[in-house]
């Protein structure tokens, strides 16, 4: 039986990708629970910061998604606060520089937007946390795509990460829906979130991000994604 603290739930159309952390002798390590027949969950009835237990099943390891763990019989044991979750995440995989995130230098796709990717054979893991110093959201292709530019403590930047964090995407969708219902002609989602993010996230003492790798695209690129953005959005922000 494996016990896991759920840390990341991401949108993966259709369905969700889930990551948790389990205790080790020195801290925590990330584990990606997956159902027996797919990399994604079409229904995942748990929330971030829930503690689950499940029965592990032997899982083939594929680079760089070494954290995959097939399991069954998932059930909730308890839950922790967001603050406690962040404290645990800071004791799991953390990188200060881009190279430390996945154990290799990310590359940029110069074709369009400087989206970052790693070569699957070079990456040593597929999820890592980091402290962010700045953030900017872009809504050019919203809905459904929200993209994020992120600044790291090292001074390096990631100019174009897809935001796949389920909680943040739900929050953005809900905000946009309410604005549509109110028929506010002056509402611009980019302006609202630009202001909102700057005030609430970039200045928060809890600001922290978890960056994950997508499954290899065309066998040669694993795109970087913003799996989790802390602090999480709260309903009273709206």
């Amino acid at each position, binding site marked *: 039986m494996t016990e896991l603290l759920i840390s990341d739930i991401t949108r993966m*159309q259709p369905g969700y990708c889930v990551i948790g952390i389990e205790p080790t002798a020195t801290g925590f390590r990330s584990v990606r629970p997956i159902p027996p027949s797919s990399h994604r969950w079409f229904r995942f009835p748990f929330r971030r910061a829930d503690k689950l237990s499940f029965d592990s099943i032997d899982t083939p390891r594929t680079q760089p998604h070494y954290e995959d763990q097939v399991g069954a019989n998932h059930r909730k044991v308890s839950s922790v606060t967001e603050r406690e979750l962040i404290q645990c995440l800071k004791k799991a995989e953390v990188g200060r*520089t*881009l*190279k430390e995130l996945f154990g290799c*230098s*990310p*590359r*940029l*796709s*110069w*074709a*369009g*937007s*400087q*989206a*970052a990717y790693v070569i699957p054979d070079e990456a040593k893991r597929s999820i890592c946390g980091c402290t962010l110093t700045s953030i900017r959201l872009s*809504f*050019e*292709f919203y*809905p459904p*795509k929200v*993209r994020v530019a992120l*600044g790291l403590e*090292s*001074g*390096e*930047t*990631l*100019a*174009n990460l*897809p935001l796949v964090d389920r909680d943040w995407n739900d929050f953005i969708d809900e905000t946009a829906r309410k604005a549509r219902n109110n028929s506010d002609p002056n509402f611009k989602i980019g302006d609202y979130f630009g202001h909102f993010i700057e005030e609430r996230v970039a200045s928060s003492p809890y600001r922290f991000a978890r960056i994950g790798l*997508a499954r290899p*695209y*065309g*066998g*040669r690129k694993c*795109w970087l*994604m913003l799996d989790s953005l802390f602090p999480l959005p709260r309903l009273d922000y709206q």
Partner: protein
Amino acid sequence: MPNPDWNPFEIREVVENSLRQVLPSSTQLPREDEDWIESGLVDSMAHVEFLLSVERALNWPNLFGKAGAAPPQSVRATIDAVQRALVQRIGNQTDALKSRSSSSEASAVDAGIAGWGSALGPEKISIGRVEAEFGCSVGKLKERAGIEAIRRVSAGEDEISLVRLAAQTALKRGGISASALDYIVGTSETFLGLPSFAASLHSALLAPVNCRVLDIGGGCVGLIHCLSLANSLLTDPSVNCILVASADVHSRILTPGKVPWEFGGLFGDGASAFVLRRAKNKEASVPFAIRASVGGCAGTFSSALHIRPRSDGSIALEFDGEALAHAAVEVLGQTFSDLEMRVGVSLEAVSAFALHQPNHRLTEILIRRAKLPAEKVPLVAKSCGNLGASTCGVALCNALDSIGQTPQSERGPIFVASVGPGMLWSGIALR
């Protein structure tokens, strides 16, 4: 602004080229109506890359974002979306364009490079001697960097003495007196004191007091920044003549004991200068005008090269040569592709490629990867070392020397491109 004359064939070419850039290698172009997302041909991120690539090729930021509808997911849908937006935009802008063209008597395209010159450190130092000075194994620098010699200034020379020579050559070639200069726009990655580099050059040339001076940063990209800025300044009808200049004397800073051989051993000393002048009248034209300019900054690679003076006079250097080299080759290749699309000519039709050359091996890789005709790439680093901002300046002078006398109708454009710490990149097309 997008070109209102894009026809359906050109739009298709842009769409297909952009799609090829994001598709996994050896994947065939999809059918006309195939939904790439539904069929799994491209993933969500590659879809965004494709859309932005089309926007960039058409020089039309936010084209699909403003459309209001869901972004297109097939070749046909993309072409239709572009054509719809084009029709709408042309309608909206007709009046604005009319008023703009009647009110603006002068534009940057009336100006071009009238004179050029370069200067190299007069001492030619063999790479064997450089290896000995830095205490590295015999043949290692030559083997790894492909550099055969570097150029160094003599005692008593500095950035200003070098750039004065280059500037005097450029002014003489352009038939222009220093007293006619409206601006001096300069860049140097090694000149650290005040008065600044451009101000010192102003004094050295005895330029008039009403000639303004600007110092531009950017490291190895500095010269292209200067040329782009000068081109913009020339849209002011009161500005007629600008001197753009660069000089880098690395031999006084990147010395053995301060930096390791694999970094310090690559650099040489050199300078370049260009006179940009507006055409004397509306009918006349000046050759080598800047027809397209691209560039940007990718902080993702900002830690690949960090160099700062410490308070004790030593140098703090963090240098990830492999990451830097990889990124440099990719971004320079993409810069040429962007310029190709912007000016609407193929790389085969380009007359010369003046590019930054961190070391000769990297230049060879770039030539191979970007499929550049090697005979059209003036080599600098191989015999002079990396001259910093002046590398592509000296390469551009060499290119202008070889095709400067060819009538405009008989030659193609010159592409100039560079990358610098940051990571910055910039490219211009001269016609």
